[in-house]
C-alpha cells in the first residue's frame, strides 16, 4: 500500500528523560502508548481475578466461597473493569503507538492532552476500586447499572461510581479528539484517506463513536445522580418518569460502546492477515465502507437489548431488522479476511494464529448475536447464560484476541527484539482451548434456562458449569505466559529487522526497530 519514497533522516533532538518523570510528564506518543498498554494489562489481571472468583463460586451448585452480595459486586466490577480498564485503554495504547507511525506524523496532534487522557484513568480506577472497601460495598447492580437497582436500591458507593464514570468519559473524549485530529490533520504528504492502513481507518471511526457516545453516558449517570440525591424522578414512574428511560439512554451509549470495543480489533486483524498471507488485503474499499456502515447502524439498534422490557410491536420489529442488517457489513469483513487468506502463502506465527482464531471465534459470537437479534426467540434467551456466552465470544476471542495479536505483531517493532515464538504459540493454544472450554458450554446452559448474574443454580446446570470453571482457570493462568513473554522480549531476545515480518508493508515497517524516540519530525513523502 503506502511506500516510503525517501528515507528522511530522523534526528533525535531529545531522547527520553531519566527516571519516573519520563512517565509522569511525557508528551511522547510512544511513552503514553506504553503507559496505556501496561495499565490495561494490570486491569486485565485485576478484572480477570474477579472473573476467577465468579467461576470458582460457580464451580459447584450451592454457596461455597463468596457471599451473594460480594458475588454481585464481583460481576459488576469485572464488567466495568474489563470494558473501561482493559479493552478500551489497550486499544488506545495501540493507537498511540501505531497511528502516528502509520500516517507519518511526528506525534499525536495534542501531546499534552494525550498525557492527561492517560493519567486520568488510574485515578478514576482508584475511585472505582476504593468502593470495594466502602460501607455497603461496591456497586452491585451489574455493569449495565439499570435503574432502579442503581438508584433507589443502590449502595452508597454509587456516588463514587458516578464520578469515576465521569472521569473515564473525560479521558475517552479527549483521547478520541486527539486521535481524530491526528488522523485528519497530521498525515504525511501523499497519505490520502484511501491509502490509510485499516487500523487507522477503524480507529478514526471508533473515535467518532466515542465522541458521540461517551457524552450520553455522562448524561445518564448525571440523571442517576439527580434521582438519588436531588429528588428528581427521571427513572421513577411515581413522578411521571420511567425506569425504561434509563435503559434507552444507557443503551444508546452502550451499543456504540460495544463497537468501540471491536472496530479497532477489526483494524488490527486487517493488518495481520495480509502480512502473513503475503498478499494485499482483499477488498480494502469495501472494508472501509463496511466499517462506516457498522458505525452508522450502531446508533439505531440499541433497543435490541430491551426486547423483553415492554416496547410497542413497531419498536420490536424496527430494532430486530436493523440489528439483523449489521450482519451484512460484518459478513463483508469476514468474507474479505477469508478471501485475503485464499491462495496466499500463509505462515502461522503467533499473531496470525490469534488473527485466524479471531475470524472463526468472532464469527461464532456474531452468529449467536444473530440468534439473539430475533425478537420472539430473544424472549427465551434474554438474561440467560446464552447472552453471557455471546458477548464473551465477541469480547474475549474477539476484542482480547485482537489485542493479543496486535501486541505480538508489533512488539518486535517496539522493542527491537523478537518475542519467544514457541512460548507465544503455547500461550495461543492454551488461550484458544481455555476460552472455548469456558464459554462454549455457556450456550447450552443459557438455552436450558440458566439465568445470568446469580451465585447459585439448580442441580441440572452442574456439569457444564464445572467444565466452564475449569476452562476459565486454564485461560486465566495461561495469561501469565503472555506477561512473561512480553517482559522477556523487552529485556532481550533475537534482534528484529526493520521490516520484522516478511510480508509487512507500510510506513511503520520502514523505520528502525525499535523506532527512534521521535519519528517523522520531518514528514515522509508517501507515493
Amino acid at each position, binding site marked *: 500500500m503506502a511506500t516510503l519514497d525517501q528515507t528522511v533522516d530522523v534526528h533525535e533532538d531529545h531522547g527520553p528523560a531519566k527516571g519516573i518523570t519520563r512517565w509522569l510528564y511525557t508528551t511522547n506518543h510512544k511513552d503514553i502508548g506504553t503507559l496505556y498498554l501496561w495499565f490495561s494489562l494490570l486491569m486485565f489481571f485485576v478484572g480477570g481475578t474477579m472473573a476467577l472468583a465468579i467461576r470458582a463460586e460457580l464451580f459447584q451448585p450451592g454457596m461455597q466461597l463468596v457471599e451473594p452480595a460480594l458475588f454481585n459486586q464481583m460481576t459488576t466490577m469485572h464488567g466495568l473493569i474489563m470494558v473501561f480498564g482493559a479493552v478500551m485503554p489497550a486499544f488506545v495504547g495501540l493507537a498511540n503507538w501505531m497511528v502516528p507511525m502509520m500516517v507519518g506524523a511526528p506525534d499525536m496532534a495534542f501531546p499534552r492532552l494525550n498525557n492527561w487522557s492517560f*493519567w486520568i484513568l488510574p485515578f478514576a480506577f482508584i475511585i472505582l476500586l476504593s468502593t470495594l472497601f466502602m460501607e455497603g460495598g461496591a456497586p452491585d447492580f451489574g455493569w449495565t447499572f439499570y435503574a432502579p437497582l442503581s438508584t433507589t436500591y443502590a449502595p452508597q458507593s454509587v456516588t463514587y461510581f458516578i464520578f469515576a464514570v465521569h*472521569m473515564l468519559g473525560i479521558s475517552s473524549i479527549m483521547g478520541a479528539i486527539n486521535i481524530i*485530529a491526528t488522523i485528519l490533520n497530521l498525515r504525511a504528504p501523499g497519505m490520502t484517506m484511501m491509502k490509510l492502513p485499516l487500523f487507522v481507518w477503524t480507529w478514526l471511526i471508533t473515535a467518532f463513536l466515542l465522541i458521540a457516545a461517551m457524552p450520553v453516558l*455522562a*448524561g445518564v449517570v448525571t440523571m442517576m445522580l439527580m434521582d438519588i440525591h436531588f429528588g428528581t424522578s427521571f427513572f421513577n414512574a411515581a413522578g411521571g418518569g420511567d425506569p425504561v*428511560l434509563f435503559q434507552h*439512554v444507557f443503551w444508546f451509549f452502550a451499543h456504540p460502546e460495544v463497537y468501540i470495543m471491536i472496530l479497532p480489533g477489526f483494524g488490527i486483524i486487517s493488518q495481520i492477515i495480509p502480512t502473513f498471507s503475503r498478499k494485499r488485503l482483499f477488498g480494502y474499499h469495501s472494508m472501509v465502507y463496511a466499517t462506516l456502515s457498522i458505525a452508522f447502524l450502531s446508533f439505531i439498534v440499541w433497543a435490541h437489548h430491551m426486547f423483553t422490557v415492554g416496547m410497542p410491536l413497531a419498536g420490536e420489529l424496527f430494532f430486530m431488522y436493523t440489528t439483523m442488517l449489521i450482519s451484512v457489513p460484518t459478513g463483508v469483513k469476514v468474507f474479505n479476511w477469508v478471501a485475503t487468506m485464499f491462495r496466499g502463502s500463509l505462515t502461522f506465527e503467533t499473531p496470525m494464529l490469534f488473527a485466524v482464531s479471531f475470524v472463526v471465534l468472532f464469527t461464532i459470537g456474531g452468529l449467536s448475536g444473530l440468534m439473539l437479534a430475533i425478537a420472539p426467540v430473544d424472549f427465551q434467551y434474554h438474561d440467560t447464560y446464552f447472552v453471557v456466552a455471546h458477548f464473551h465470544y465477541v469480547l474475549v476471542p474477539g476484542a482480547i484476541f485482537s489485542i493479543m495479536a496486535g501486541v505480538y505483531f508489533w512488539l518486535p517493532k517496539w522493542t527491537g527484539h523478537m518475542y519467544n515464538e514457541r512460548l507465544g504459540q503455547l500461550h495461543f493454544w492454551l488461550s484458544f482451548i481455555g476460552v472455548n472450554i469456558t464459554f462454549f458450554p455457556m450456550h447450552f446452559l443459557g438455552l436450558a434456562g440458566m439465568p445470568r448474574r446469580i451465585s447459585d443454580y439448580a442441580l441440572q446446570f452442574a456439569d457444564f458449569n464445572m467444565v466452564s470453571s475449569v476452562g476459565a482457570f486454564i485461560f486465566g493462568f495461561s495469561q501469565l505466559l503472555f506477561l512473561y513473554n512480553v517482559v522477556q522480549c523487552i529485556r532481550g531476545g533475537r534482534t528484529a529487522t526493520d521490516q520484522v515480518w516478511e510480508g509487512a508493508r507500510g510506513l511503520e515497517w520502514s523505520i528502525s526497530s525499535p523506532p527512534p524516540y521521535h519519528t517523522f519530525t520531518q514528514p515522509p513523502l508517501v507515493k
Partner: protein
Amino acid sequence: MTTDIYYVPKQSRWPILASIALFILAYGAASLINALTAGSGGGLGLSLLLTGAFCLGLILVGWFSNVIHESRSGLYSAQMDRSYRWGMSWFIFSEVMFFAAFFGTLFYVRMLAVPWLGGEGDKGVSNLLWLGFQAQWPLMITPDMNAFPGPKEIIDPWHIPFVNTVILLSSSVTVTIAHKALKLNRRGHVVGWLLATILLGVIFLSLQAIEYVDAYQEMGLTLQAGIYGATFFILTGFHGLHVTLGTFMLFVIWLRVLKGHFDPEHHFAFEAVSWYWHFVDVIWVGLFLFVYIF
C-alpha cells in the same frame, strides 16, 4: 498539507497535576453529596471539593498560559492551527451529544412514557400502576403527589424566556461584529462589542436566576416536582452552566484583546470562543421551543 515542522511540546507537568486535582475534586464531590444526603456534615468532602477545584483552576490557568505563550512565540504552524480547529469542532460535537441525551429524555417522556402511564397508546396498560392518573403535558399532577408534588404553575414563555431569547440571539450578533472588527484590525470596536457580548451573557444569567427563584418560591416548580421539573431544570440548568463557562471564556478573550493579543490573521482562541458561544445560542433556541413554548 504543509511540510512545516509540527510543534511537539517537551515534557509537561500540567497534565499529571491536573489529573490529581481532578481526582481530589471528584472524590470530594462524591463524599460531599453522600454526606448531604445522609445528613451528616460533609466538611471533609467540601474541603476536598474546593481544594480540587481551586487547584484545577490554577493548573488550567498555568497550562493555558503556556499554550498562549507558545502561540505568541510563533511556534505554531498553519497545520497546528488546523489541529485546534478540528479539536474544538469535535469538542463542541461532544457537547451537542451531551444535550442530545437530555432532549431525548424530554421527548421520550412527553411522547411515550407519560401517555402510556395515563393509559393511552400501545403500552397504556402501565396505567394499572396508578389507576386514574391522567396524562398531560406539562405534567402538573404527578402519579404520586405526595412523593413528587407537581408544579402549581409553569413559566410563561413570553416573559423572561422570550427576553432571554432576544438577549442571547443579540449576543451572537455582537460577538460576530467583534470578530469582523478584529479581522479589520479595529481594536477599539473589538473591545466594545466583546464587552457588549459579555454583558448580554451576564444579563441572561441574572434573568435566568430570577426565573429560578420565582419557579421555586412562587410556582412550586422544583427539582422534586415530578418529571416536568426534572427535565426543565436539567436542560435549562446545564445550558446555564454552559453560558456561565462561555461568558467566562469571553471575559478571558476580552482581557487578552486588551493586552494586545491576536492579530487580524491569527486569532483562533477568539474564534473558538465565538463558536462555543454560537453553540450555547443554538441550544437555547431548542430549549425555548421545546421546553418553554411547546
